[in-house]
């Protein structure tokens, strides 16, 4: 396959994944509103379209048509750059995520279900998460507003603190798989179905727990959503943003949620492999062989998102000093102990 053909096919993959990702972001918002509504014993949005399914489209149209107000005292270049950084970092990390089975390939070993299969896929995701901090930091500072600055500083400090716990909790998985390549990590969990998933057979339940909490803090979601709590900080770092730029921050948050869910399913829940393993034989039809792993992957990501929304609807939020204390004093040492335990277990196996 020539370079030009490779570029064209990759471009098609990128376009498909981006469109699917943006639609998922929109419908994750709807999922959350309906689920939180049901937890609070009310219907969520249910008027627009059947079961409220057209609500995200209507919300998108509303965002586009709102007046775009830019306050006069802001530092314009960074004010305009910050939501772009936030949204692009949220969307870029999906490029190394494998959605489906790599055994279904196109001509010339072209991988259909992963945009780029790099040997350091996990580190790419961690790196892009680190860069995403700039979106929030620059948004708060450039807004020239004390509430925004405080909110963005708190949020950035929270993000960089929990990045540590996030990264350390993933080291146990990497130790077991022996590689940083996301495809190989998933394949190392696929021998016997649900029993060999890293969550159960790999004994990484502590790491999963740590990852879960660090992920909630990384995406600024309840119970760690102090930086955007309305009663505390009048919407924190996105106080001065309106219409499309605010929508970009909003989309970035939900896109981060989906990415974190994808990473969790790949590393802990077995990715695209079915929980039944080899008990149910793979159908011979190539079409099913391609679609069934994607179906399992989407199911697992959806269950992770369901957990996210469930926690948001149920738990109260942390106070800021409790939040920082929790991340540094409890989560990080626990993650280091997990690495120690995992390496001892692997050494004596």
């Amino acid at each position, binding site marked *: 396959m020539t*370079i030009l053909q490779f570029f064209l096919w990759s471009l098609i993959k990128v376009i498909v994944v981006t469109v699917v990702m943006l639609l998922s972001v929109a419908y994750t918002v709807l999922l959350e509103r309906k689920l939180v509504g049901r937890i609070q014993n009310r219907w969520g949005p249910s008027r627009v379209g059947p079961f409220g399914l057209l609500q995200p489209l209507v919300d998108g149209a509303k965002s586009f048509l709102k007046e775009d107000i830019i306050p006069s005292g802001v*530092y314009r*270049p*960074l004010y305009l750059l910050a939501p772009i950084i936030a949204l692009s970092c949220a969307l870029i990390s999906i490029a190394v995520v494998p959605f489906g089975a790599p055994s279904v390939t196109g001509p010339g070993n072209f991988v259909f279900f992963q945009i780029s299969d*790099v*040997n*350091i896929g996990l*580190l*790419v995701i*961690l*790196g*892009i*998460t*680190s*860069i995403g*901090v*700039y979106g929030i*930091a*620059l948004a708060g*500072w450039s807004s020239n507003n004390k509430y925004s*600055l405080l909110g963005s*500083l708190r949020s*950035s400090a929270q993000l*960089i603190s929990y990045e540590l716990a996030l990264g350390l909790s993933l080291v146990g998985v990497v130790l077991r798989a022996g590689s*940083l390549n996301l495809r190989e990590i998933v394949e190392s969990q696929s021998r016997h179905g649900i029993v060999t998933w890293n969550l159960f057979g790999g004994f990484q339940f502590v790491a999963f727990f740590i990852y879960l909490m660090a992920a909630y803090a990384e995406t600024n979601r309840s119970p760690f959503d102090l930086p955007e709590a309305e009663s505390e900080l009048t919407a924190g770092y996105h106080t001065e943003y309106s219409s499309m730029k605010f929508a970009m921050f909003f989309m970035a948050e939900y896109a981060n949620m989906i990415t974190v869910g994808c990473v969790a399913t790949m590393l802990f829940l077995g990715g695209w492999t079915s929980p039944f393993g080899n008990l149910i034989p793979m159908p011979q039809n190539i079409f099913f062989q391609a679609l069934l792993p994607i179906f399992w992957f989407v199911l697992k990501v959806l269950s992770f998102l369901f957990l996210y929304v469930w926690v948001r609807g149920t738990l109260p939020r942390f106070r800021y000093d409790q939040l920082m204390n929790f991340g540094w004093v409890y989560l990080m040492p626990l993650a280091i102990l997990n690495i120690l335990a995992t390496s001892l277990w692997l050494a004596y196996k």
Partner: protein
Amino acid sequence: MHLIVFLVFAAFCLTGAVNLLLQTHPINSALSLIVVMTSLAVLYLLLGAEFLAAAQVIVYAGAIMVLFTFVVMLLNAGREERTRGSRSAMGVGFPAVVVLLALTTTVVLHIQGLGATAMQEGITSTQELSQVLFTKLLLPFEVTSVLILIAILGAVTLARPADAEKTVSK
């Protein structure tokens, strides 16, 4: 192909570095430096050092520059001014740097046997890197972790406000 990618990202590096010098507000200089660092990460990838490229993004662009950005945002010192000191520094600085650059360029262009690099060759896997790091160079690795611990202690002590000791000792 390789040459095009190299030229694009080398251009980004140089633009970022020159922009760091031309900007008056330190936050713009910080953002230019982030551009330089991520372009350098891509250049490391071209040279086959994939773990270092990831480490460059995670450590340098994602942590060290966040520190710089925080300090610029918190101190909020504002734009630079032209002073007498800056004019005399420019008078000495530019010629000195031109001499330095001429020297290094001459040395570089006279090195024999450098060869070239192509897309397919020599990707250093993380496994190779860690095999040397954790067996032959284990002592420097451990010393580095102690160094970082000392740096944390030093930074916390230096940046604490002076009257915090009175409330702590109670």
